[in-house]
């Protein structure tokens, strides 16, 4: 039987014995062993996970319930304005403490037996602690201080709130590195206002989405709407860069750099270049130039669970919440700037047709993840082949690269392990 994998490698492996490129065994997307290991070593390991926008919890007593991987956590704003992140699991017998997605409370209280916690997670009191009429009650040495909610380290960067279970991981801006920090600060440049959420359930492994958002190669080939209207083409000026650790990636392009004649030449063999398609209502794409650098598309993929994006005038965070090896939830929170005028509000609202689960340039990613998941599910020995751009975890000053995907896998290999976990 023809071994398709070896044939594919053979084509590029000319002068060395080693195949060029990166191959990932598909069991990373299907096996429970990987899922459990990454919850422990990655999501609850030495990583900073996005949990909220500060604007979601602006006032003392505000809380938001969310997840790090699949561990439930609550983000709270304390009376002194400080932010806390605690595990959303009662120290008594494990009930969910905050059952609403968000709200405002003076303190946190578990409904099961009414254990009450300060906004920072400290246990305040336990009903019937001394029993009733001398009967029952907690042991005499019961110490409230020993039974608070599990507290995480918290750091905020220009309105983005991150938390970690790790005591060892470096401070947030060191973890992100200067390039990523600078571009987070570029988007989060002034106070924001929340415009709304969208939630998407994808029947695929979350790492397929981590790959997808580090992949400028697919953007003009899968998302045909992009191409057809000149929002993004692989011929545009753009780059795909990483931080030093290659955990995170920064992908950008400039729509103003289209060259119609060159584009039709480059895309002549592709189904994805059809300029006969014009909008009946072009107001959808009539935006405003907001950033002096002329960048019209930014995808910042922050390891492990956040994508921060600017696409035209849409601004959003996308948070990955894992549900198991074969499904995850993507929570989109769209925002504008607090000082947006009415016209800008209208532009952002209209352009939100481009993004989210029904986004005319983003919906395909849900399908792309699922068609991979469907095909890899039954074959544990097969592997992918990632080499566009040269086959290394390299920065690229162009958009035909998969270097950042390889950077992601290098970090995953280090943190979770790959080959040794393949069963």
């Amino acid at each position, binding site marked *: 039987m023809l071994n398709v994998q070896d044939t594919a490698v053979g084509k590029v492996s000319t002068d060395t014995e080693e195949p060029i490129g990166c191959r990932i065994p598909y069991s990373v997307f299907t096996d429970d062993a990987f899922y459990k290991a990454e919850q422990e070593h990655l999501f609850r390991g030495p990583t900073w996970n996005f949990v909220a926008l500060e604007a979601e919890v602006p006032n003392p007593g505000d809380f938001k319930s969310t997840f790090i991987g699949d561990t439930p956590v609550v983000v709270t704003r304390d009376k002194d304005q400080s932010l806390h992140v605690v595990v959303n699991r009662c120290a008594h017998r494990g009930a969910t403490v905050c059952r609403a997605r968000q709200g405002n409370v003076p303190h946190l209280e578990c409904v099961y037996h009414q254990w009450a916690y300060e906004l920072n997670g400290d246990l305040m009191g336990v009903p019937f602690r001394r029993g009733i009429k001398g009967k029952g009650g907690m042991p005499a040495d019961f110490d409230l201080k020993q039974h608070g909610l599990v507290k995480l380290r918290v750091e905020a960067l220009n309105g983005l709130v991150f938390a970690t279970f790790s005591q060892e991981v470096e401070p947030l801006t060191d973890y992100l590195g200067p390039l990523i920090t600078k571009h987070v600060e570029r988007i989060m440049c002034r106070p924001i206002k929340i415009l709304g*959420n969208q939630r998407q*359930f994808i029947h695929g492994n979350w790492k397929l989405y981590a790959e997808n958002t580090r992949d400028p190669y697919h953007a003009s080939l899968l998302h045909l*709407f992009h191409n057809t209207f000149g929002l993004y083409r692989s011929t545009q000026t753009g780059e795909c860069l990483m931080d030093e650790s290659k955990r995170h990636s920064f992908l950008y392009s400039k729509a103003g750099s289209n060259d119609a004649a060159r584009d039709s030449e480059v895309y002549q063999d592709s189904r994805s270049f059809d300029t006969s398609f014009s909008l*009946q209502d072009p*107001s959808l794409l009539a935006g405003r130039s907001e950033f002096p650098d002329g960048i019209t598309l930014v995808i910042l993929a922050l390891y492990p669970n956040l994508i921060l994006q600017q696409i035209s005038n849409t601004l959003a965070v996308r948070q990955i919440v894992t549900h198991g090896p074969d499904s995850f939830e993507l929570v989109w929170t769209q925002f504008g700037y607090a000082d947006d005028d009415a016209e800008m509000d209208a532009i952002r*609202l*209209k352009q939100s*047709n481009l993004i989210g689960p*029904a986004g*005319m340039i983003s919906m395909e990613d849900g399908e792309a993840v699922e068609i991979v998941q469907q095909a890899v599910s039954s074959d544990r020995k097969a592997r992918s082949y990632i080499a566009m751009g040269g086959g290394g975890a390299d920065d690229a000053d162009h958009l035909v690269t998969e270097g950042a995907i390889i950077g992601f896998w290098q970090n995953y290999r280090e943190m979770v392990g790959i080959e040794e976990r393949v069963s």
Partner: protein
Amino acid sequence: MDLSTLPRTELLREVTDLIALHAELIDDDQLEAWPDLFVEDCHYSVLPRENADRGLPVATIFCDSRGMLVDRIVSLRRANIFPVHHYRHIISTSRIHEVRSDAIVAHTNYLVLQTRNTGRSFVYNAGKYVDEIVFSSGKFLFRSKKAIFDTDLIDTLMVRPI
């Protein structure tokens, strides 16, 4: 025509007919005819209840002209990639919420079942239509249609109107 002078039973019949036709065109994949159920200067949005309840404006689909409805359909046919699927709308009785001289406001619950090529049907989107219906060029048409949905965890993606 002053709609408020018409008998309520007649208005309700027109409302019911229009909403049933809207569902049928979508379910039967006659999407090119769907925008014709709206006036030119219309509003159509599919809005998570979560946002509606908090007064947040983001809609999953937001169109403020018939042209944008056409563009959505052209995009679906020519550009977007999505799982092969069908919708099946189940529509409740409508309740006329308000009759003005130029418009009827009606509330209707709906359920959209989806079937993909696995052959299984599931509840894809449950919600409530808030419709503003006008009589224009001899026809009852939507001036505004909002589908406010409870099912705010959208399965895979949304390409087809609700």
